[in-house]
């Protein structure tokens, strides 16, 4: 399960993303490093503006100016992909890395039938003819659980419900049998009962095809039920990373602990929710030292001066005073 054992499929090393603005460069992502093993689901969780979607965007090479990669590297199957020419990256995208975005309606072309979109994607990436591509498209639609796929294949996206559209988007992402799928908030726009269907489907496909997934979401619940490992992001950095059960049950970073405690429980009613006072700092006002120190109840003078690093252990927290000494290690 841990990426350090098997050779990593995706390896992000010390990634730094900078936005050049009128008032000088803003560092949106700073020193982000993580690995994803083949077939693994890595959850990336954080609040709005933490940099989780930006990380995904950088991996699939869709970072728009003024954003740019200012440091570090991204390796897919041992090959560096962050400096590839646009045309080469375009061929890689879809073929080796698939993408699923939040809003299934905007990810699909409204004027093409679902079948046409699938066939186009398949023939673009794989050396097959139209008839074979259509056969594969049909099989994919069946695989993602679309009932009556034989008729549905010739329908347009507006004829599908939200959950069914997201299944079509998943089928599109799977077309060329990619090794990695970046799923950015794939269930956020869906109702809870449909959400469960989609996460179960993602999990099953991941297991059957050996596809790795980088699951970006703000919903700790979705991560807890879907991911193998989780990376918690705050103000452009990974503050904690580890196996999902460990992070959820025994968080080491005070931010992760605060985040977990602020989620209302379905099992019991408490008089008051634990809240983390204040808000995440803006990019132009990230405090020196640990970015979380102004909101942290345990901050020491050291935390205001020195940025804590992320140790290389399986369950690691970037904190000078982690909640528990890493006793299990």
């Amino acid at each position, binding site marked *: 399960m841990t990426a350090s054992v098997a050779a990593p499929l995706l390896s992000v090393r010390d990634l730094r993303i900078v936005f050049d603005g009128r008032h000088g460069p803003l560092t949106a992502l700073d020193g982000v490093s993580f690995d994803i093993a083949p077939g693994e689901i890595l959850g990336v969780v954080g*609040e*709005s503006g933490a940099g989780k979607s930006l990380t995904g965007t950088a991996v699939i090479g869709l970072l728009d100016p003024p954003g740019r990669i200012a440091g570090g590297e991204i390796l897919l199957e041992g090959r560096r992909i962050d400096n590839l020419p646009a045309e080469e990256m375009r061929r890689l995208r879809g073929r080796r890395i698939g993408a699923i975005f939040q809003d299934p309606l905007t990810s699909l072309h409204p004027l093409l039938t679902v079948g046409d979109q699938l066939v186009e994607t398949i023939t673009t990436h794989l050396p097959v003819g139209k008839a074979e591509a259509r056969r594969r498209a049909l099989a994919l639609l069946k695989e993602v659980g679309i009932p009556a796929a034989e008729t549905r294949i010739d329908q347009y996206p507006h004829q599908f*419900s939200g*959950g*069914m559209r997201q299944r079509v988007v998943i089928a599109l992402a799977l077309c060329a049998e990619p090794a990695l799928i970046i799923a950015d908030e794939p269930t956020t726009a869906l*109702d*809870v*009962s*449909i*959400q*469960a*269907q989609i*996460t*179960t489907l993602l999990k099953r496909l991941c297991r059957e095809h050996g596809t790795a997934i980088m699951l970006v979401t*703000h*919903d*700790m*619940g*979705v991560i*807890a*039920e879907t991911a193998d490992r989780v990376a918690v992001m705050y103000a452009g950095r990974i503050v904690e990373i580890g196996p*999902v*059960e460990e992070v*959820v*049950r025994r968080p080491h970073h005070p931010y992760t602990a*605060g*985040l*977990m405690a*602020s*989620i*209302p*429980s*379905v*099992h019991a*009613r*408490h*008089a*008051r*929710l*634990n*809240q*983390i*006072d204040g*808000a995440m700092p803006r990019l132009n006002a990230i405090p020196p030292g640990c970015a979380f120190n102004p909101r942290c109840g345990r901050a020491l003078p050291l935390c205001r001066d020195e940025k804590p690093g992320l140790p290389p252990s399986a369950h690691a927290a970037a904190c000078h005073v982690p909640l528990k000494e890493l006793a299990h290690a």
Partner: protein
Amino acid sequence: MLDQPAILASAEDKTDDVVLDVSGASCRFDVSAPALSRLFSKEPRRILRAVENVSFSVKRGTTFSIVGESGCGKSTLARMVVGLQHPTEGVLSFRDIRRADGRLGPPRVQMIFQDPYASLNPRWRVGDIVAEPIRELKLRPDKASTTERVGDLLEIVGLSRSDAARYPHAFSGGQRQRISIARALATEADFLVCDEPTSALDVSVQAQVLNLMVRLQRELGLTYLFISHNLSVVRHMSDQLAIMYLGRFVEAGPAETVFADPKHPYTRLLLDTIPDVERPNRARRPMSGEVPSPIAPPPGCSFHPRCGMAMDRCRVDPPELRPHGGVAVSCHLPGAAAA
């Protein structure tokens, strides 16, 4: 809003502080094609039943929550309560209450919307946004006391007096929702209808806003009608709750009872399918199927196509909302899902 018959007002003392009474309320929308097109195509009229025969009452100082998936009619119901939508059938009535200033009258009702980015005028200063209801309702005699009141309101919701001079864009989502709450309280509201007030917010900010709402309820004796799709938020906030499916209540009762022992298979499935941080990587049973269209709801019990226990009777005979073990359930086999 609706005129109060004298009889209802005098009965106030006996019915322990009921402030809102909804009986048999329905809201239907005519979504047919234009008459001329229908004449040619011979299509029948199409009626969307957004809310069907819903009855409940809300007690003063408590929170009544309505839970359901998109399209179940929960927002239409909220709009009916604030008077933005007229019921096609049935009656919604507010009882007179003894208000904070000692006078007897109907409660003041305000709404808090889901998207704090869309519900505040970006060209107005926060001070003006909060002062508008005070000026409109002439709640303060002059400018100085209005400004004073705006400052007080901003402090009540956890902002500072100096924030009145800033524009909404300078505030984060959570702070904007605080401004919305201050604006609602500016009318001296007693009854707040909150339509998904925290679903656009991050969890740590959501916790701040929910804590604020609980504190305000305790301090000001507010009554909330809370609309949400998030069961854990609802559990945290509610005294009473109702689960809606395709425009009808399928289960309603005290929140603790419903959560401890859900009687309707839909409630049961909702509780089973929500992601749960406390049980990581549990194998869950996803609910099959999707919510049918409210234009052509299935015959019999509207949940039967998705229900694992549906019998022949469920396909023809729509169940009524009946009391069962401390709650009201509309199911032919109430409680069987728990087994």
